[in-house]
């Protein structure tokens, strides 16, 4: 961390209730530009629910989600679904990869640049006429897609149908697609799930590179502690929907509350928090 921290996303008193169940309870934290903020916690702690609120799947029961773009403050909870991506600059990936499986790798990345191209094509009219301005925009889109394919080592498979890619490649393609929208904040839901140790080490390098080169913020849900502890600038720990700790990796590791949430108290029966949380939230907390 060098220089002054620039706030990017301010979550204030976010609460999400499903009938009687409180999935996220009065959560507040700030994510910064050029930083990786990890959200961790036992299964069902409400991590994915936070993402779902941020990306407009759920309307929060209470609280404020403010994206700070220059001088502007954009309130995500009041925005129409697609504007969260197009105007606020939020991009997201999923636990269970959600690609356009029937389209090619390249098409997946060009669809993500739809808005920029739509404007350039005068809503398809210029595109159909093949006007030069549109041609240039399309070339730029392909160039951008190629840049990310190159960076993520997928360039040789650009013309593959996305659904036919091996799992690890699909995960990376999803990240590439999110980046092609030109986001301010990249939300990654368990990007290391199902990756082998070598691949997750590569993921670390990649995420650090994105943070430094693109100057965007990254919000990360992850269970793989080698990823979380290795690259996070800030870690937010959730348990039962509440924030129990917030700090750097070193601070979190030493925090007794965190240890308790993960391992349970020694006096009590083993693993009460985790099993309880799992049963209580498994239907809502971890699905998307």
């Amino acid at each position, binding site marked *: 961390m060098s220089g002054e921290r620039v706030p990017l996303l301010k979550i204030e008193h976010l609460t999400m209730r499903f009938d009687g169940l409180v999935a996220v309870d009065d959560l507040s934290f700030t994510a910064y530009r050029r930083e990786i903020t990890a959200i961790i916690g036992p299964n069902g702690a409400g991590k994915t629910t936070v993402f779902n609120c941020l*990306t407009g*799947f759920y309307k929060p029961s209470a609280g404020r989600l403010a994206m700070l773009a220059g001088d502007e403050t954009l309130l995500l909870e009041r925005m129409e*679904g*697609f*504007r*969260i*991506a*197009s105007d606020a600059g939020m*991009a*997201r990936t999923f636990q*269970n990869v*959600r690609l*356009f*499986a*029937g*389209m090619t790798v390249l*098409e997946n990345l*060009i*669809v*993500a640049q*739809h*808005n920029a*191209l*739509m404007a350039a*094509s005068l*809503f*398809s009219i210029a*595109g*159909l006429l093949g006007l030069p301005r549109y041609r240039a925009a399309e070339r730029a889109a392909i160039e951008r897609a190629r840049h990310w394919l190159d960076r993520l080592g997928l360039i040789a498979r650009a013309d593959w149908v996305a659904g036919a890619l091996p799992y690890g490649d699909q995960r990376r393609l999803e990240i590439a*697609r999110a980046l092609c*929208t030109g986001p301010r904040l990249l939300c990654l839901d368990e990007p290391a799930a199902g990756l082998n140790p070598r691949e997750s080490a590569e993921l670390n390098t990649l995420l650090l590179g994105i943070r430094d080169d693109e100057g965007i913020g990254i919000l990360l849900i992850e269970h793989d502690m080698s990823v979380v502890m290795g690259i996070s600038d800030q870690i937010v720990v959730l348990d039962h929907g509440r924030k129990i700790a917030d700090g750097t990796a070193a601070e979190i590791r030493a925090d007794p509350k965190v240890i308790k949430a993960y391992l349970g108290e020694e006096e009590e029966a083993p693993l009460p928090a985790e099993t309880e949380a799992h049963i209580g939230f498994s239907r809502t907390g971890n699905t998307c």
Partner: protein
Amino acid sequence: MAYFLQQLINGLTLGSIYGLIAIGYTMVYGIIGMINFAHGEIYMIGAFVSVTAFVLLGLIGVSPVPLALAIVLLTAMLFTALYGWAVERIAYRPLRGSSRLAPLISAIGMSIFLQNYAQITQGARLKPMPPLVEGGFTVFESGGFAVRLSVLQLLIMVLTLVLMAGFTTVIARSRLGRAQRACEQDIVMASLLGIDVDRVISATFVMGAALAAVAGVMVTLYYGVVDFFIGFLAGVKAFTAAVLGGIGSLPGAMLGGLLIGLIEAFWSGYFSVEYKDLSVFAILILVLVFRPSGLLGRPEVEKV
């Protein structure tokens, strides 16, 4: 042989028209997963607009047939597209996110509304159209039977071919087409990438309606009569075509349209004209029972 060839020509003509209408069904189903039962009425509106436009052009004195035809086609596409857009905006968009049944019922309501709307504003009687495109060729002659291919039939087939080729290109290559395919595969994800899903859906209705309008114009010229009820039968038959081809599949709708047209023509030619509708609906039942995903459709995979 000659008789067979004649039925083939008739069937392809009819099939072209069904194919044009079927595209509207299949596109809408592909993207929002509903059957737009008002689509047949959209086609009927297209036919009425064309009659009105022909009459108006006659009054102004636009006499060259190709010019009149071009103007009528464009007018019909424009106005009908407006209807298609309005139907979606009024009857379906407010219901998005509710149960799957709600827009379906709304569609049937819209269909009845449009029929009555046309009946009240245009009258219940058949509207005749004098034949405008005349002439034809004798393709083949044997045993005293001449196989005729009229200029109009040729026009219908060629126009359909051009429109379908153009349409396929738009879907495959253009920005909008790409967005449509993305919405078809995962509408939520498309929205998360910043695609204005509502606008894509509107565009889909507009495109489907414009193609149905072309079918409406062609039918008006082909049969020479229009009434407020033609949308129902043509709509159900085009729907059958879409199901036969595999609903949600664009080439399927085109193929299904042609097949339904051919089946109807051959049935009329070899068995009985009175029961030609029966043949089409028997196909609908058989496909739904034995091959619900159609000829070119993919079996539905539940999205997680």
